[in-house]
């Protein structure tokens, strides 16, 4: 029996040797059967990506193009397979989005292409691929990352969607202002339904849960920003669409409640250091609709002020809100037909779509800015819990 003498880290070259017949076992244990909520919780972020890349480096080192190809194909297909199986689980999708991006960054960082080597240490430069140019595979993996991103957005939307109308429009947290119900309108929710009602806090808690999961998985900060922007877009679009379809949501006090809710969402962004990710801007149509509910709507000057304020709303949306506007007490009046005509005349020359409702399925194009890692491959150790004892550190 060979004596197992522990080697010093500096003796390792940051590669993992494996036999061809172990490739299926590798993707099975590392991708198909890895539970993000179990073993993976204690791993360093992106570890599966680093392990796969270190295996790839060895296949490249021994100049075996077939081994390189089959490892990449098995990796990609296994990630697709696990997402097909557990694509409705946010943690699984987030985990594989983070790892797919890390794998893509590794392929760039160690490609040997100078554009990607600027931040590398000398040792990292020594770890660049020796024999193969994997630029085409990088494109395939980037396509895969886009697919996973879209799946993540769908998954997140399914969780958020049922909370939005209730938390952003129906639930009232500022009782002092909105205590008076619009006359002649019944509450839509029964007292039984109230118990299960989502509040703004439910939404904020859910956003924090998404955020902390993505951080735990080592998702690139730039990618988190894009996810958050998309989340805010969905919240804003679903809220505005419901406001545009419900008379009971078009009152001065609802305007107040919406503005308060928006300020809480902004506070959440500030708390997470995400004020510059473009998320707040996606709420602009909703913010303007809330302002429209609160401004005076009587004179020509009012009409002018509304037209210069509501630039993120279409004419159809402005007119709809004015038509639906319902006074909450005897001191207020409905918006006159003449006032709405004035607004329509003023906005006649605007070049825009006649669109009333926002497209809640729209997804902003995603990008994966290159994000090299300072982690030294030769220091990576594989925890026993991953069942990868058949890999040899080289």
């Amino acid at each position: 029996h060979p004596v197992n003498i522990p080697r010093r880290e500096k003796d390792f070259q940051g590669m993992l040797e494996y036999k061809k017949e172990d490739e299926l076992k590798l993707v099975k244990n590392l991708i198909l059967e890895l539970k993000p909520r179990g073993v993976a919780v204690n791993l360093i972020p992106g570890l599966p990506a680093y392990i796969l890349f270190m295996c790839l480096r060895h296949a490249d080192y021994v100049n075996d193009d077939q081994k390189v190809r089959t490892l990449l194909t098995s990796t990609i297909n296994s990630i697709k397979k696990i997402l097909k199986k557990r694509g409705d689980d946010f943690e699984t999708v987030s985990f594989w989005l983070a790892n797919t991006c890390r794998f893509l960054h590794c392929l760039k960082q160690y490609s040997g292409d100078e554009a990607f080597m600027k931040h590398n240490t000398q040792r990292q430069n020594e770890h660049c691929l020796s024999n193969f140019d994997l630029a085409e595979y990088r494109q395939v993996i980037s396509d895969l990352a886009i697919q996973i991103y879209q799946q993540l957005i769908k998954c997140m939307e399914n969780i958020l969607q049922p909370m939005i109308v209730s938390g952003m429009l129906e639930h009232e947290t500022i009782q002092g202002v909105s205590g008076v119900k619009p006359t002649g309108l019944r509450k839509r929710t029964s007292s039984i339904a109230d118990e299960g009602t989502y509040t703004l806090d439910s939404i904020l808690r859910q956003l924090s849960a998404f955020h902390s999961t993505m951080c735990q998985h080592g998702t690139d900060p730039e990618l988190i920003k894009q996810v958050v922007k998309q989340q805010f877009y969905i919240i804003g679009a679903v809220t505005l669409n419901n406001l545009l379809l419900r008379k009971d949501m078009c009152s001065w006090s609802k305007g107040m409640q919406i503005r308060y809710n928006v300020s809480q969402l902004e506070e959440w962004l500030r708390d997470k250091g995400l004020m510059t990710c473009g998320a707040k801007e996606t709420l602009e149509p909703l913010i303007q609709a809330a302002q429209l509910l609160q401004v005076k709507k009587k004179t020509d000057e009012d009409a002018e002020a509304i037209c210069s304020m509501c630039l993120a709303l279409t004419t159809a949306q402005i007119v709809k809100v004015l038509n639906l506007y319902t006074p909450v007490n005897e001191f207020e009046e409905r918006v006159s037909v003449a006032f709405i005509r004035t607004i329509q005349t003023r906005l006649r020359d605007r070049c825009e779509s006649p669109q009333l409702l926002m497209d809640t399925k729209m997804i902003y194009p995603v990008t994966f800015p290159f994000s090299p890692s300072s982690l030294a491959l030769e220091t990576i150790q594989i925890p026993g819990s991953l069942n990868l004892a058949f890999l040899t550190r080289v």
Partner: protein
Amino acid sequence: PRPSSRPRILLKAPTLAEMEEMNISEEEESP
């Protein structure tokens, strides 16, 4: 370290959809 003069060989990659097809036989074999 790799000698910088030697160019790397570009490995042609199939598309994502083609890769899935390549995997069908393998999936059929598994229980």
